[in-house]
């Protein structure tokens, strides 16, 4: 727990992921174009809605009107038609031009060679986070340094998911048999909240993602901790946990579930479904379906003794 604090438990948490409070460059450029679009559409709304309301009010039938008397029959006017065709065309062309520029600036930004690379792999219903340059594998939290940008390679192990941390960057899908890219550069240290944004099955709702942005030296310390292997544990290794989970430095090499090597350094369990507390951990291992119904982690029907051993061991994985 002490370690956890050292690694930034005190970081400000951005739980309300307001897209209009961007805290990284991609989200910022999206925010700027959003403001422009809002201004234009807002102006259109005021003008057109005003016209509609005025027309309804001004030309409503009043008591005492002669019901037999028809108003002048006007069939149309070519000049007016041309006017309200041309003006929207001009507006649309402005919007197309601006969009094209922002699309290019976000999508075609070439990553500088020194950029941190992270591979994010979507699973039903959790995120696998790999740091190929550091040999780190973790889950559901992306730790990044604040000073520079981080380049994300997005892949999926099963169905389509979508990466979305609103205050850092808009969505990019994680698609099986395809690699997508995104990048983020949070400026301030903090924990940024995101969700899987593409429906991916039963527990789509509990597939939460956190980006933990830290000062570069804190990030280095975190990475150094994460690179350390864990101690072996005979009781744990005798259970079928190992067929799905990997714990570095031990014979547990399962690929199906999240890597557990430094489980206790994470803030949540089950991809954000519950907080990572001792009691929650115990309940989660005992009966995953209670906290996250439909989760692919089965209840192993552990005896109380086995459960105690497993939880004790997991709690040692700092």
């Amino acid at each position, binding site marked *: 727990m002490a370690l956890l604090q050292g690694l930034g438990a005190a970081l400000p948490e951005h*739980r*309300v*992921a*307001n*897209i*209009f409070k961007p805290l990284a460059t991609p989200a910022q*450029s*999206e925010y700027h*174009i*959003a403001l422009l*679009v809002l201004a*234009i*559409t807002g102006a259109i*709304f005021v003008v*057109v*809605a005003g016209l*509609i*309301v005025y027309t*309804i009010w001004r*030309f*409503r039938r009043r008591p005492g*009107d002669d019901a037999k*008397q*028809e108003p002048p*029959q*006007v*069939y*149309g006017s070519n000049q007016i*038609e041309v006017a309200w*065709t041309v003006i*929207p*065309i001009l507006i649309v062309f402005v*919007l197309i031009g601006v*969009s094209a520029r922002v*699309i*290019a600036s976000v999508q*075609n930004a070439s990553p500088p060679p020194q950029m941190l690379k992270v591979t994010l792999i979507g699973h*039903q219903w959790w995120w696998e986070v790999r740091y190929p340059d550091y040999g780190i594998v973790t889950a559901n939290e992306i730790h990044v340094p604040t000073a520079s940008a981080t380049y994300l390679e*997005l892949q999926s192990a*099963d*169905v*389509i998911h*979508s990466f*979305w941390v*609103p205050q850092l*960057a*808009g*969505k990019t*899908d994680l*698609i*099986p*048999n395809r690699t997508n*890219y995104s990048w983020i550069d949070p400026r301030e240290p903090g924990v940024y909240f995101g*969700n899987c*944004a*593409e*429906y991916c*099955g039963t527990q789509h*709702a509990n597939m939460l993602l956190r980006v933990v942005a830290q000062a570069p030296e804190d990030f280095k310390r975190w990475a150094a901790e994460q690179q350390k292997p864990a101690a072996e544990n005979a009781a744990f290794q005798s259970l079928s946990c190992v067929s799905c989970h990997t714990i570095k430095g031990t014979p547990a090499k399962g690929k199906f579930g999240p890597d557990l090597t430094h489980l206790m350094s994470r803030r949540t369990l089950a991809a954000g479904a519950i907080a990572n507390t001792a009691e929650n951990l115990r309940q989660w291992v005992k009966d995953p379906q209670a906290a996250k119904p*439909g989760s692919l982690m089965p209840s192993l029907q552990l005896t109380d003794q086995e459960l105690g051993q497993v939880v004790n061991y997991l709690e040692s994985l700092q």
Partner: protein
Amino acid sequence: MASIDYPLERPRPKEGEFSFSETLYRWVATVDHKRLGLMYIVTALLFLVIAGLMASVMRLQLAFPNNHVVGPETFNRLFTMHGTTMVFLVGMPFVAGLSNYLVPLMIGARDMAFPRLNAFGYWIFLFGGLLLYFSYIGGGGLSGHGSAPDVGWFAYAPLTSKAFSRGASTDFWILGILVAGIGSVASALNVIVTTICMRCPGMTLTRMPMFVWVMLIDSWLIIIALPPLTAAQVMLLIDRFLGGNFFNTQAGGSAVLWQHFFWIFGHPEVYILIFPAFAILSEVIPIFSRKPLFGRAAMVGAVVAIGFISLGVWAHHMFAVGMTSWSNTFFAASSMLVGIPTGIKIFNWTATMYGGKLRLDTPMLFCCAFLLQFLVAGLTGIMLAVSPFDWQLHDSYFVVGHFHFTLIGGLVFGLFAGMYYWFPKATGKLLCEKLGRWNFWLFVIGFETTFIPMHFLGILGMPRRIYTYAPDRGWDFWNLVSSLGVIAQAAAIALFIWNVIDSIRSGEKAGDDPWDGWTLEWATSSPPPEYNFEKLPVVRSSRPLWDLKHPHDPDWKFEQ
């Protein structure tokens, strides 16, 4: 001389003493376009209520954070069935029902071009819908997994593959929609042929009522856009039953290909759904403003333009799949272009009202609300078309708010206008105006309360299709507000149903032409006889009954 008399007395269909089984037989075996039209509309209303109840359960679940009204599996089934039902079993039969009932009457024909194909279309549609709902019983299949489909109405691959969707529920989704789709295509073909081949003497294309024009283009979109869905669904069946690899990413298949195929159907589909509302407004607004539709030619042009541009915008549903920047720019551009003809339509409707004498009866009230709500929907649509903005808004509650503004605030409001307007024609009774106003205001209040907050939720980062959320994400308040709006909406729908039942039983007699109309359906009795017109009418302008009622100032003097 072929001309219609506007007869003072005409034979009414005998409302004789039919036993229940005879009545049932007359409805089941009918090939009359009016009966089939009513059957479509009643079926659509039934499904509307069912899908509305599903939505209410979802809103109840989302009213509070960490709520436990339904579990994740039930919730996912609810939104899948809600979306699928609303699109395929409410929107589509409304298209078919309205065009079936009104197109022949408006063009002065005695029936559709292919009456038996018409009956076939209805029944196969109905059984497609029932097949989908049978999944609640049969969806478990042999393996016992699942009940109703839970893959979303868009059914993205590979979530629909055997590996991720066991049991038979997805198969029910595929087959139910495929079968119902055949009915929609049959009905659309019929409308096209009827419009092209069955117009009464003098009814040139330039004189055709705007309603018929819109339905013609709508049907065109259906026959072009539905086959891609059918094809994609057949591929999915091949994958699921024969072990094919179309969407099998393990064998090199592409998950994105399904999205392309689905949205090549899916985006024209939303225009298919909104067109009936355009059609209704183009009839109701002129009648209640007492002025002809402003800029008829431009209105036809706008509909045709939408009919074509909308075939080239589909990938704006896919800005987040990682297309090249060129594709993203192209589809952003084409999507915004659709805004232009749509804008022209709103301007022309407003111009029609400008200078008129607006009779603000219930149908017109719904039209006025439509204009404002559809304007908002169009503008949020522009926001979504700007793909960098869409990267944020995509698959968030903002999108949910946006398309409910088009489909409820637009389509359903338009349909209510239409139902209040043509109910007297179909039944001979007027709907109660007082209940109508209550219906309108309750619906407006409920609608705005439910769907405006969804835009804010999207901006606060709430994704779609989640069954629960934590209390600390800033979503509690707006979700609760949104859910409260459901109460008023449900009351509005209940009032409408009561209004219909009560008016049929003891409503005020409508007469043949209660709104002082200008198109041919008002020239026959209410309800019209089975043969529609005793003598085929002859028309010389787009407002034949105006000509008739104003012999000194007829339209044909001004039209070519």
